[in-house]
């Protein structure tokens, strides 16, 4: 009998693939069903956001950066405003700070609900997608009544926020939080002890903490590997130190922990929002000294915040003119995609889908 000849072969996953959350291409070297090597090919959504920002005034940069990370566009608005405020030494009124925290945390919940739905859909469950996006619409309604947009808000501006919340916002927001917290048990009931879900995620694609730190992985993925590092605590910005909340940590670093951790984070964000609603002060919402032709003095600053996908940073350099000299953005997904080839091998191709989905990568953050 002749010897059975086997050979490696290449599978091209993407750039148009329903489970890659955008236009990422993974070139996989396969041995049967097992992955030998992963080579991410990116750049299919490289839109030159950094180049565009160099030819915009500071206020004009904010709507461009909305498109940098559209699932949590509030964070992008905020991180740029934070950098510009640090450069220009701008004071922010108290009410604006509270509104910012409310919006950031609501956006975090909305993003995690998308994660919940989309991840489940990638792994093969369609119902969670309908559930997650149903509750997300409640939050979209809140954003819409505040700033008129559903996705790209341009709401948080340098020195404050663009407009005040309408009077019906607070009761609507409390109602939305109540509904979401009631339905959290539905979400968990659908997946947490579902045997198929457990087989697909538990113990799959373990990311060791040392590897994660070495490659700059941050956010929920890092915390699911057992490193308690959250910039809301470790590098406090805005008024987060006034609120009582926990930083959830899980220790296995597998797909299941990454999923559970995000559900935990929804609960903590809801705690922050309800505390902020209780103590929302009256007053100004924008620093009146910040004009449309805002010009900070020359200098450079790196601002970073805890986004849904890890550390979101902006390195902003001003040369004293009306336009920034350089806006270097940093998104968590960039590093999470970078670390994927180093631990994602030696597993089945079906597990790669679960692994990729629970990293919660979105491509504009990678490609910019």
């Amino acid at each position, binding site marked *: 009998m002749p010897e059975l000849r086997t050979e490696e072969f290449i599978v091209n996953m993407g750039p*148009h693939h329903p489970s890659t959350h955008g236009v990422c291409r993974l070139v996989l070297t396969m041995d049967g069903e097992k992955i030998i090597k992963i080579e991410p090919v990116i750049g*299919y*959504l490289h*839109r030159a956001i950094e180049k*565009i920002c160099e030819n915009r005034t500071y206020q004009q940069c904010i709507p461009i950066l909305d498109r940098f990370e559209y*699932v949590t566009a509030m964070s992008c608005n905020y991180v740029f405003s934070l950098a510009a405020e640090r450069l220009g030494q701008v004071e922010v009124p108290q009410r604006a700070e509270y509104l910012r925290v409310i919006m950031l945390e609501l956006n975090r919940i909305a993003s995690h609900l998308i994660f919940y739905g989309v991840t489940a859909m990638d792994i093969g469950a369609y119902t969670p*997608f309908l559930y997650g996006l149903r509750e997300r619409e409640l939050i979209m309604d809140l954003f819409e009544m505040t700033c008129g947009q559903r996705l790209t808000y341009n709401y948080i501006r340098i020195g404050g926020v663009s407009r005040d919340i309408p009077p019906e916002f607070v009761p609507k927001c409390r109602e939305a939080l109540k509904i979401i917290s009631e339905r959290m048990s539905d979400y968990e009931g659908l997946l947490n002890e579902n045997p198929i879900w457990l087989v697909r995620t538990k113990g799959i694609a373990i990311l060791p903490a040392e590897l994660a730190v070495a490659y700059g992985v941050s956010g929920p993925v890092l915390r699911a590997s057992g490193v308690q590092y959250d910039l809301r605590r470790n590098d406090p910005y805005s008024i987060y130190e006034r609120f009582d909340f926990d930083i959830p940590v899980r220790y296995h670093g597998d797909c299941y922990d990454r999923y559970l951790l995000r559900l935990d984070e929804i609960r903590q964000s809801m705690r922050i929002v309800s505390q902020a609603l209780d103590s929302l002060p009256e007053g100004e919402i924008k620093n009146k000294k910040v004009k449309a032709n805002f010009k900070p003095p020359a200098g450079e600053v790196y601002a970073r915040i805890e986004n849904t996908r890890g550390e979101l940073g902006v390195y902003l350099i001003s040369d004293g003119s009306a336009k920034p000299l350089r806006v270097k953005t940093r998104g968590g997904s960039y590093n999470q995609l970078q670390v994927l080839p180093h631990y994602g091998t030696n597993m089945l191709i079906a597990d790669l889908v679960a692994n990729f989905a629970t990293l919660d990568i979105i491509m504009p953050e990678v490609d910019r």
Partner: protein
Amino acid sequence: MGLIKKVPIYAENIPGGALVLTTLETVLHQAQAKSLWYLLFGTACCAIELMCTGASRYDFDRLGMIFRPTPRQADLIIAAGTITKKMAPRLRRLYDQMAEPRYVIAMGGCTIKGGPFYYDSYAVEKGIDHIIPVDIYIPGCPPRPESLLEGCLQLQNKIKKQRLLDWQEK
């Protein structure tokens, strides 16, 4: 069974009796317009709104629109999001893989003329209509789900009005 037995009775009430006259064209295009299967092709922000339109509140399914992950089963490609110069050949290839008759909806400013990335960007394709032919343009950045639904209804109207000969000549 009861209903089927009663059909002739109902049909007799229609002027002209049980005989309903129509053209093959109308029947074909009605059927085609009411079952547009779209390709899951989302690149950027608009993809999230496309997802929302397919999900609970807006519910694409009631227009007979079901998403398909592969171009070979799709009638419609909704280009949702920015198309960069690197992505443009891939979009063309996906379009070529679809079977005739095929339709294109350009969703959002980026696909129409580059949108917010028209100026100062070296990487963005300024409009997809010089890569593939576009049937419906939906402006917005991103368009609301209602706009997308309206765009799809307009596409259905367009399909209903077309002639069989039109796409024979293509």
